[in-house]
């Protein structure tokens, strides 16, 4: 059975459907952060129109929240980085994903798994937005600019008020 998470933001609510069959480690990891309240009060700190919206790592003021250990990259699961899918963010290192995630706002083929190499690993899709895609569209369109050392940061905080696992 798929899992569901409600993301309540200051731009509206989104319902995420998580594919725990094809991305078990990513879903387990994401739910762990949801259930211990990690995402509550974090922001979408990186928003690029026509690309993706990224969040779950920083509080307002760009203060980074501590995370748990990184997880394996499950991008080879066949799920594509298509519009409104949810994927794990990470550094350049393939297996470095912790808490941050992003929502694709277009079909980003170039983010899909190609090979088990640094260049080819891609980004692991583990779910999709099934309700509230208009909220994603709204967040995608906020004014952004440079805030401190962060480019593409919303000028007014886009806040995840609460993330809850739904029954």
């Amino acid at each position, binding site marked *: 059975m798929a899992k569901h998470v409600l993301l309540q933001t200051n731009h509206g609510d989104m319902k995420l459907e998580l594919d725990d069959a094809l991305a078990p480690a990513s879903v387990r990891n994401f739910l762990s952060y949801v259930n211990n309240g990690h995402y509550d009060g974090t922001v979408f700190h990186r928003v690029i129109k026509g690309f993706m919206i990224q969040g779950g790592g920083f509080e307002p003021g760009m203060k980074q929240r501590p995370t748990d250990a990184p997880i394996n990259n499950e991008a080879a699961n066949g799920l594509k980085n298509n519009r409104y899918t949810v994927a794990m963010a*990470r550094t350049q290192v393939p297996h470095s994903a912790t808490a941050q995630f992003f929502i694709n706002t277009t079909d980003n083929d170039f983010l899909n798994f190609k090979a088990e190499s640094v260049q080819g690993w891609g980004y692991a899709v583990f779910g999709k937005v099934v309700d509230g895609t208009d909220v994603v569209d709204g967040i995608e369109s906020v004014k952004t*600019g*440079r805030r401190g050392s962060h480019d593409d940061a919303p000028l007014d905080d886009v806040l995840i008020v609460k993330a809850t696992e739904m029954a």
Partner: protein
Amino acid sequence: MPPTWKSIDFISDLHLAHDTPRTYSAWAKHMAHTPADAVFILGDLFEAWVGDDSRSTGFENQCVGVLVRAAKHRSLAFMVGNRDFLVGADMLDECGATALPDPTVVLAFGRRWLLSHGDALCLADVDYQSYRAEVRSAAWRERFLSMPLAQRRTIARQLRDASEARKHQLPLHEWADVDADEAVRWMQAADAPVLIHGHTHRPGTNELAPGFVRYVLSDWDLEESPGRAQVLRLDADGLTRVTPSTAAAR
């Protein structure tokens, strides 16, 4: 296009600067290892360019090195963009790159392709168009380039800071897209059914009018992850988006 050519790469909007090391590295690798016979750079390779005399030191000089080495193995063509419009003949000569006017028509693989950076087509951005008219004038260029290099660098920084500050004040400003009717007029005048441009940072392909298609080049930004960097490759089969080369293909 020389008959021996098998493919041409189109890139734009890398906005390279000393503080974009990851994007610079990906570009340097692609320039060294792409299998294409030519690389056409369609504007905003550089985040800023204050004059060709800046090319002899620092980050700019590193970029010259990349281009000079690439030019040994493939043809290079360079169109200026709205950030690096002061790239001139001295720079292109040293790099071994051919200057491309904006727009340019290319005859390749039996078809005509219209190339443009794209900023001149964003007619809805009225403020930008009047700014563009001013800074592309010979008088402005001469006045600016006559200032000492250090002063030009300062002014460029100030312009960049002012541009950032404006984002806070103006109502929501979407990247203005090209004016579709004007773009189609350009394509009709050039007898080229395909337009390739950058500038908007909104990669995609769509039909502007029946029979007139435009391809928007991806910008490159790899400083954060996920980042974005794509090459548009033209060969006998048409246009495909490919990942930048990282090593010599076997």
